[in-house]
């Protein structure tokens, strides 16, 4: 038996079933909560912290993607403070590594770029960190540019949960953290990688890309072969 919970998001009454996240219910009701690490079809880690929302009665902010709905909760997603926090998170992601759109393969089809526009991030206030962190182009078809990676770990999750290969994982700590293939060996030498390209499909930025494609050739050729990854499939094709 499924229990239905009624509660409020931004003052309007909504209903969700047991086990649904706040984010899922908000999306169903057309309420937009910015996210970066979340992708339908993959498990949620609550790591980008963009989707944090306020729940009445709790002094803590809670991520909408991992918080399950409960009866009578009163969620607010759009306070000025939240928007400020989100803008700072995006700003920090931009400054953490090199995200110069003009010379990026994902220019104009990048989730980070879109979100920055949406949140009206028009200048940086914090210091730029951007250390040179290298590119691994040893794979025959794909390459990873760590300078563009925002550590959403969608690639790690899709490789483990959908492809079942678990080629990708994470190593390091602090801002030295990296996604790595096969415990840190070059991607081209990976024995577990099936070259399926799912990681490239789910990457929100220009970190993972197909070789031999110019910026002008547009998107990462988002073929609809991962239909369960909804928000990728819905993205408008660039002409």
């Amino acid at each position, binding site marked *: 038996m499924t229990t239905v919970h009624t509660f409020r998001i931004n003052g309007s009454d909504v209903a969700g079933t047991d086990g649904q996240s706040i984010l899922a219910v908000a999306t169903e009701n057309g309420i937009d909560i910015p996210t970066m690490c979340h992708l339908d079809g993959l498990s949620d*880690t*609550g*790591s*980008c*912290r*963009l989707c*944090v929302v306020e729940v009445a009665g709790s002094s*803590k*902010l809670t*991520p909408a993607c*991992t*918080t*399950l709905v409960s009866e009578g909760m009163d969620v607010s997603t759009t306070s000025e403070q939240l928007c*400020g*926090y989100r803008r*700072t*998170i995006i700003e*920090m*992601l931009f*400054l*953490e590594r090199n995200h110069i759109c003009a010379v990026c393969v994902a220019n104009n089809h990048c989730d980070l770029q879109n979100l920055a526009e949406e949140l009206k991030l028009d200048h940086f*206030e*914090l*210091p730029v*960190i951007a250390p040179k962190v290298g590119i691994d182009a040893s794979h025959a078809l794909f390459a990873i540019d760590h300078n563009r990676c*925002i*550590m959403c770990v969608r690639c790690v999750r899709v490789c483990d949960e959908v492809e079942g290969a678990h080629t990708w*994982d*994470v190593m*390091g*700590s*602090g*801002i*030295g*953290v990296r996604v790595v293939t096969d415990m840190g060996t070059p991607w081209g030498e990976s024995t577990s990688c099936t070259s399926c390209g799912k990681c490239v499909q789910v990457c929100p930025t220009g970190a993972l890309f197909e070789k031999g494609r110019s910026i002008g050739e547009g998107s990462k050729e988002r073929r609809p072969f991962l239909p369960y990854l909804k928000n990728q499939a819905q993205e408008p094709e660039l002409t």
Partner: protein
Amino acid sequence: MSESAPSAPPAPPKRPRRAADGLRPLEGPARASAYVCEAVSCLSAQSHDILLKLGEQVSGAGLKDVEVKRVGCLLLCASGPLVQIPGTGQLFSNVRPDDLDAIVEALADVTPGEQRAPEAPFFSRQRRIATENSGRIDPESLDDYVEKGGFEALRSVLTSMTPAQVREEITRSGLRGRGGAGYPTGLKWNTVAKAVGSPKYVICNADEGDPGAFMDRSVLESDPYRVIEGMAIAAYAVGASEGYVYCRAEYPLAVSRLRKAIHSAGRAGYLGLHILDSKLGFEVDVRLGAGAFVCGEETALIASVQGGRGTPTTRPPYPAVAGLWDQPTLINNVETFANIAPIIRKGGAWFAGIGTSTSKGTKVFALAGRVVNTGLIEVQMGTTLREIVFDIGGGIVDGRAFKAVQTGGPSGGCIPAEFLDMGVDYESLVGVGSFMGSGGMIVMDETSCMVDVARYFMDFCREESCGKCAPCRVGTTQLWILLDRISHGGATLDDLAQMERLGAMVQRTSLCGLGQGAPNPIFSTLRYFRDEYLAHIVDRVCPAGVCAIEPAPVPV
């Protein structure tokens, strides 16, 4: 016995029983004893050589009825190696192996049967519960522990109490988690007991990572059986059958003593199936951490025990409901478990009678920094900072002026002199912008620069951030850059305002306690020492003379 029963494991090779490794056993009862500290800080100052030499000299002097014994921490760690004569209460510090005559002489004069504690205020002002056996028993001897009343609490729990009664006793005691946050232990035990799922697990968190804190290490090195007993009682109370001690690999002596203790407790029937012929079956295993500070956070700890990368996950679900392998899991700190046996032995009401209205019992602190007596102390909750720093700690070295005391590690704060008369408990520390934490207490005098202190802790957090969530990963580095700029004299007042804004954001949006607590050292130093920040920014001077201020740019 039926044939299907497993054959008994082969008996281990017999070793002669010795008072301590390398010493001959005593034939009769001891008239006098000399306790030699063999916890790691004294060991690193060659206390084992002293143990052997003292043994030689004692027998050389014909003192056949004097026992030389290895014990755990004698508390005054910075003055090691330490030797104590419990018969007279004398404590010899900074002992050298070629200078033991005074000890042998003192041993010759001991009146049998007398026991005296050292009289110095460092010892007499303490109240020892969690560390009551520390420095009194041989940490590697089960017999010694049992002789001092060890495993009595476990026996009485198994023979005369129901699990619910045990939990009620712990609830009545008012014991709160000693890992830092102070969550009521009885409530946690009740939650795990009520959670649905089998098997349940008990985990002892011995991943002590705060800079300058070594309370858990000392308890494990000095009295490992007490922790095991506490875990076994917890297992009975919540219905768990397996336990893990998650200890950092940087504590090799603690790990080895713990493993020996688990082994010998198992052989003596205090662990394993049918503990003390009861229905309780409980096994304990040790898991080593690989040096990540964040693994002290309970969800990261669980990930690490499971063999994964030690990164925290969002709560709820709490480990009490879905923890290790998604089963109900009780996680308590070493010191919390060390308090269990005395509570059962003497009753929850006794424990509740100690301390303040909200914080019961005692707290172990690692007293460090610019005080005369540095070492381990256990004081009643509510003891004032003045008592701790000036009576127990003996005041500031070189007679300098007291400036602040830092508690709570990288999530804590600095408490200035105006709060010296404040009693220390969970609430009072939070009230002044600090945090109990696991019990590190660093005393600072006028030679410490508060900007530098904040910068040091931020540097620690930025390296120890696991890198999972963006606010902590990038935010701690950004805060460190700003602090670094201030400490070099290159910052503006805008930078200061920026730092405060960013700090508040990191505090509110980070995933786990590491990020949420990381800005605390900044906020607490800003609250009480804003003038020092302004001196760095506006006047470009470091009042304490610590920071290397770069010369101001020449206006063109």
